[in-house]
């Protein structure tokens, strides 16, 4: 089964869970006076759930034929290991770590670490320049966000 059909299978599963929630878990929460209405909070989701089950099934069953199915993408998933997969996964992990550490470590430490380590992983070896660019960019962005846009960003770790 081709990759796009696997994705459709995942979406079909999501649609089934969504439809189950719409059909069987929402209506009993409705106050009695709303039950007289022609449209309920579950009406629209029920329609969407059924339609997405039908459309994802069309893709899984291959009813819409396409000669050039996946070739349209710029990255061929069948040769995914030939690409820079390691650094890409590492950067995704770095982003998740940045999200987790932004508040406890403060903006400066987490941002400088994120920018410098990401640059290093991508192959930059001029460590001093990398650190200098990361530090100055962090300060400029912090200044713009905090002072110009007026949005609070904790600059230093919580202990300070």
């Amino acid at each position, binding site marked *: 089964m081709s990759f796009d059909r696997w994705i459709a299978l995942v979406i079909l599963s*999501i649609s089934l869970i969504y439809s189950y929630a719409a059909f069987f878990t929402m209506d009993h929460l409705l106050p009695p006076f709303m039950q007289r209405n022609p449209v309920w909070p579950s009406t*629209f989701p029920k329609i969407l759930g059924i339609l997405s089950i039908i459309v994802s099934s069309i893709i899984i069953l291959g009813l819409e034929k396409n000669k050039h199915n996946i070739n349209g993408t*710029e990255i061929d998933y069948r040769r*995914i290991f030939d690409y820079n997969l390691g650094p890409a996964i590492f950067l995704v992990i770095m982003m998740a770590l940045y999200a987790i550490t932004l508040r406890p470590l403060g903006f400066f430490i987490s941002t400088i670490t994120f920018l410098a380590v990401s640059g290093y992983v991508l192959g930059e070896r001029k460590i001093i320049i990398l650190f200098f660019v990361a530090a100055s960019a962090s300060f400029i962005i912090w200044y713009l966000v905090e002072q110009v846009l007026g949005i609070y960003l904790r600059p230093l770790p919580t202990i300070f």
Partner: protein
Amino acid sequence: MLEGLLIGLETAFSLKNLFMVVGGCIIGTFIGMLPGLGPMSIIAIMIPVAITLGDPAAALILLAGVYYGAIFGGSTSSILLNAPGVAGTVATSFDGYPMAKAGMAGKALTIAAISSFAGGTIGAILLMIFAPALSSVALLFHSAEYFALMIVGLSAIAAFAGTGQVSKAILMTLLGLMMATVGEGALYNMPRFTMGLMDLQSGFSFITLAMAIFALPEAIFLVLNPARASHSESNKIENLRITKEEAKSIAPVIGRQSVQGFFIGVLPGAGATIASFLGYAVERNIAPAHEKKDFGKGSIKGLAAPETANNAACTGSFVPLLTLGIPGSGTTAILLGALIALNVSPGPRLMTDEPQIFWAVIISMYIGNLILLILNLPLIPYIAKILTIPRTFLIPFILFFTLMGSYIGQNNATELLILVGLGVCATIMRLANYPMAPLLIGFILGQMLEDNFSRSMQLYDGINFIMERPMTMVLLFLAAFLVILPYLRLAKSKKAS
């Protein structure tokens, strides 16, 4: 109309808004030049800044400026490096790059700038003519017609998705609509599909979703395929002048493609990419035999056609957005999301209720196009230096701005984790060639669609509104036809073969 136009002139020519349009055009050009970063990603990154401005007119002017700038920047990288920043400028590289290789990079950039200017300006004139007319018709619409019209818009996006992509586009639209139902909607005042999570109580954030499905996958693709970001070769830009004969030769092309591109841009789902390819194909077909052979080898007509068409189409895509409140493309969907975040509801009433926004945007299009012509053209050799930024610096910064954009919008670190999760899902879906723009359009239209559907159901006590309102029925038939059309075409071509 005249009164509105004067209000628009006053708003657009205020110092703040002039600064917005100039800034937007320059930022758009700079970032649009970077291969792999399209206008959708750039606008998504700029949204938090625009929303923080608090002034809807200034925000829309800034984002519209970024939009034109990005298209212009994309053309520059197409011509100089054969690396189109956006799909809408791929056709530009067919003749632009051969011209640059032949030592005519300056001339190619001038033709691109003039064509873009003409396409954008003529498009703005057509917008000025057609938008008010369409607005006055749309004022007659009730919620039932709005519901049907949104269905037509969503169906058209699927109809233009291309061979083998129709089901995927419909599925992505449905997924976007499903995501829009998550959270506590204004209509029912009860949480839906939140799975008991407090962070989902107010639903998915539009900014986070826009960043996750456009900016983040672009950055990941740049990491996966380094060839996309690094270009060692660069063509020298020297003489920017074009001769009188050349100007005469491209003038009719510009005229034709401005009109054609504009009307293609108005169609939901068509947009700049289809306009530029169609413009190129039309001009190649109608060119005399001795000129036809130059297409693909450095023809000035082949360069002017897609450049004019894609800019006119960008302007055309504002028609359904400003008059009906329905975005026809991913970019205008992001603009609609930004307007909703600023408590402005685009639609037929926008022209009468908020004339300063409606007209200021149109006036700013003229200013933006003029700025791109007079400011960017002489500065292109310097702006092109951005292409020399190493990817080791570029990619971490794109990721950082994506994260920051989402954080600033919500001021919530959990939002960043949602962004990363959705971004990874979007990247995997893009690898499987699932179109992402329909998802965002579905998400943004979702709440409005449900509101209009529920209102119509309540007013007519059920589904009767389809029978009782002929216009609704006609629109729904049209939507059904648009969905079936690609399958009919497929069946016909099968029969023929």
